[in-house]
């Protein structure tokens, strides 16, 4: 792929990015969020057409206008969101052979043949425990991923793209995946591997390319690179923007959790947050951070343990109860959980506390508008007016509204679940200063994130979560990105070797 360019609206996602892949190698593609990795891969797999640049396959220029044509050339993608490519109502076998339905000419589908072929490929993947006749919606995330890999294999894929494949997997499941990848490698399949987890990248890749802001920065053999080199290339100097706060004092204990569990994911979690403190909860995707956030916010029931606020026991059965007791959540998926994307800014910002904007039960529009305006100016939201519909706003500005809507209630504890997800660097800085400001006002803040460098930049204390339980607590001075990452991915300090001393300074 040479000099690929792609622009969405006003933002340039790819700026002359180049990438090459040899047969039978695992090529890791790294980069910060929004660097353009997924976009580049979507172009390679025919989802998007590039604005400029060309793709050469086996010395032949190719144009992929449709995912279909990429597939015809042997390029397959195991998507980050596997559900977009899985047909829930069809069986595993049918999902594995999905592409053949639209392609082949034959009329009849033989279930027997289908099952045989599917079994064969699953055996190759050492995944013959999956029943090929089960409907796909019953599968776990890892199994769905296997189905997608099987789908690629059965179509004689020459190139398979893995977009953050281990993100939803447990360590065990990830290991199996690595097995499969090396197996694919032996068969001469070229693999592109996108991941934010550096250790595994170093474990399985042959080459590494680092992207930043739509461009490829470095490229080289894995053997010749070190983790810190890669991290430096990835992050640049971005983190220097987050200034240290001064003069912030941490007060009394505000919220206390005592051995809470939800009977599913969360196990025996205890922690405290004090006034003015920013507590970070670190953990990889799937660690259970969102579950914890929702449990605290009353959106999912607790099975055991209890929450206390300022010494008083809380019994939050519904988000409403949590809000009344001063706990508010800025959820991870803002478009799905946080905002009414088709509605105006005014409606969104005033919604959590409509009582404040009504007399009797009648809403007072002028009051609402005034409040919305105050949110806009306080958070520096870039928008036309208070009546602008949210879907016209950029992601960062949407996120500000998702936070700003809680300004209408007297909250004391703010839960931020991945608040910088999909947010550009400028907006990220503004959100950070907003969090600082809240802390300075004496609010308690819990910040859930898998972006460890962000946690380190903003939190007073970091709790590391792994598979639904806390495995380590760091004070700000103790924490390093590497240590946190290590615990977050299920490791133990005792287990690491000489690199223990080798910390990445931020």
């Amino acid at each position, binding site marked *: 792929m040479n000099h690929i360019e792609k622009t969405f609206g006003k933002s340039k996602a790819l700026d002359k990015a180049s990438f090459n892949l040899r047969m039978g190698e695992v090529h890791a593609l790294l980069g910060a969020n929004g660097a353009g990795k997924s976009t580049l891969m979507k172009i390679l797999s025919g989802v998007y057409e590039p604005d400029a640049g060309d793709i050469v396959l086996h010395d032949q220029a190719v144009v992929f206008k449709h995912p279909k044509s990429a597939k015809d050339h042997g390029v397959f993608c195991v998507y980050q969101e596997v559900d977009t490519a899985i047909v829930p109502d069809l069986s595993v076998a049918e999902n594995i052979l999905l592409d053949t339905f639209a392609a082949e000419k034959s009329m009849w589908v033989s279930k027997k043949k289908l099952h045989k072929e599917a079994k064969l490929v699953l055996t190759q993947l050492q995944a013959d425990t999956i029943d090929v006749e089960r409907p796909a919606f019953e599968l776990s995330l890892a199994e769905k991923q296997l189905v997608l890999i099987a789908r690629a294999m059965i179509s004689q894929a020459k190139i398979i793209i893995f977009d953050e494949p281990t993100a939803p997997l447990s360590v065990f499941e990830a290991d199996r995946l690595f097995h499969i990848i090396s197996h694919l490698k032996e068969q001469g399949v070229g693999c592109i591997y996108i991941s934010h987890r550096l250790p595994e990248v170093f474990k399985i890749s042959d080459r590494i390319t680092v992207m930043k802001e739509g461009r490829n920065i470095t490229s080289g053999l894995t053997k010749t690179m070190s983790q810190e080199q890669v991290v430096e290339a990835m992050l640049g100097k971005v983190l220097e923007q987050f200034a240290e706060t001064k003069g912030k004092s941490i007060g009394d204990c505000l919220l206390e959790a005592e051995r809470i569990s939800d009977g599913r994911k969360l196990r025996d979690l205890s922690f405290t947050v004090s006034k003015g403190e920013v507590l970070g909860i670190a953990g990889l995707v799937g660690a259970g951070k969102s579950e914890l956030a929702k449990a605290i*916010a009353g*959106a999912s029931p607790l099975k055991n343990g209890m929450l206390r606020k300022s010494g008083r026991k809380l019994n939050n059965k*519904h*988000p*409403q109860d*949590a*809000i*009344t007791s001063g706990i508010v*959540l800025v*959820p991870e998926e803002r478009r*799905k*959980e*946080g*905002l*009414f*994307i*088709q*509605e105006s800014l005014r*409606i969104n910002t005033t*919604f*959590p506390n*409509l*009582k404040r*904007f*009504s007399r009797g*039960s*009648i*809403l007072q529009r002028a009051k609402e508008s005034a409040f919305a305006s105050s949110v806009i100016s306080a958070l520096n939201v870039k928008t036309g007016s208070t009546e602008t519909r949210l*879907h016209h706003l950029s992601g960062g500005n949407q996120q500000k509204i998702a936070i700003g*809507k809680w300004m209408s209630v007297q909250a004391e504890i703010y839960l931020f679940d991945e608040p910088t997800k999909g947010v550009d660097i400028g907006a990220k800085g503004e959100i950070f200063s907003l969090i600082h400001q809240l802390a300075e006002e004496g609010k308690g803040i819990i910040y859930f994130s898998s972006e460890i460098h962000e946690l380190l930049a903003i939190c007073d204390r970091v709790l590391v979560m792994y598979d639904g339980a806390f495995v380590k607590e760091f004070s700000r001075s103790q924490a390093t990105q590497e240590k946190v990452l290590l615990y977050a991915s299920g490791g133990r300090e005792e287990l690491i070797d000489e690199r223990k001393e080798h910390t990445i300074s931020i």
Partner: protein
Amino acid sequence: MKEKSIQFLFKYGAILLLIFIIIYFSIISPAFLSYGNFTDILRSISIVTVLALGVTFTLVVNGFDLSVGSTMSLSTVITASLMVWYDMPLWLVLILPIAVGALVGLFNTLLIVVIGIPDLLATLSTMYIVAGLHRTYTEGYSIYNHMPLTSGGTAIGELSEAFLWIGQGKVAGLPVPVWLMIGLIASAYLFLNHTRWGRIFYMTGSNEEAATLSGVKVRRVKLAAYVVSGIFASIAGILFTARVGSGQIDAGAPLLMEAVAAVFVGYSVLGAGKPNALGTFFGAAVIGILLNGLTILNLPYYAFDIIKGSVLVLALAVTYVYAKKRTAA
């Protein structure tokens, strides 16, 4: 340019259409543009409008109540039977059917919220069940003054004058059902557009999950919407009984689709793009005026449905073509 004209059409298209229709009929027939004819039209749409308002509430919370027709039929026969069979006092005659309507709403909520059956299918089942119930209740008879009973003898009561006044009386030159309709439209409009409850209803329909996380008890909101829908259907049934002077069996069934059509035509009013009380009234009015005008024009009745369907397509096309443009932009 094209963009703009589409937007204009989206906002004012429906109203322009109505004005055009009125002008056309007025030219064709002098009888059309009279005060008397207009109050007649208003009265003739009052029942379907009330029914449609109920449907509007369920659509606002992103549900859909197909059982309103049956509920209205049930209310009709209950109302009539309370007077004719049991000679009950007026206040009971008005309250009981409304309570039954609320019960139907509860039953719908049970199916939808507790069991988890999709709205459309749940209310479809309820539609059947309630239709069967109301026929079983009267044993297939319509109910009228001093009707003979299957067990022999005649019924003791009759529809009282006071009750009939609800459907046939006039106050200040306007028929009572029209006043009632106006009152209900105004309340629904105020509730949905100007109270915080209304806001909560709309937001629940717009994004259930976000509403929950913002502290809304979504199940209760849905319950409220279905109960309101049942109550409005019952009021429609009471109006029908008072208008017709007897408890006709299956009175509501044919009105279901008409009510649904009214609500959807209403989407396109003033660019709302979503269910809204004024739009629903407007939708019912367009259909009522067309029916009235076409009768005056002596158009055969069998062509009415073509017109009704075309108006619906037009309104929907305007709404959705615009919605498409908007999300694409």
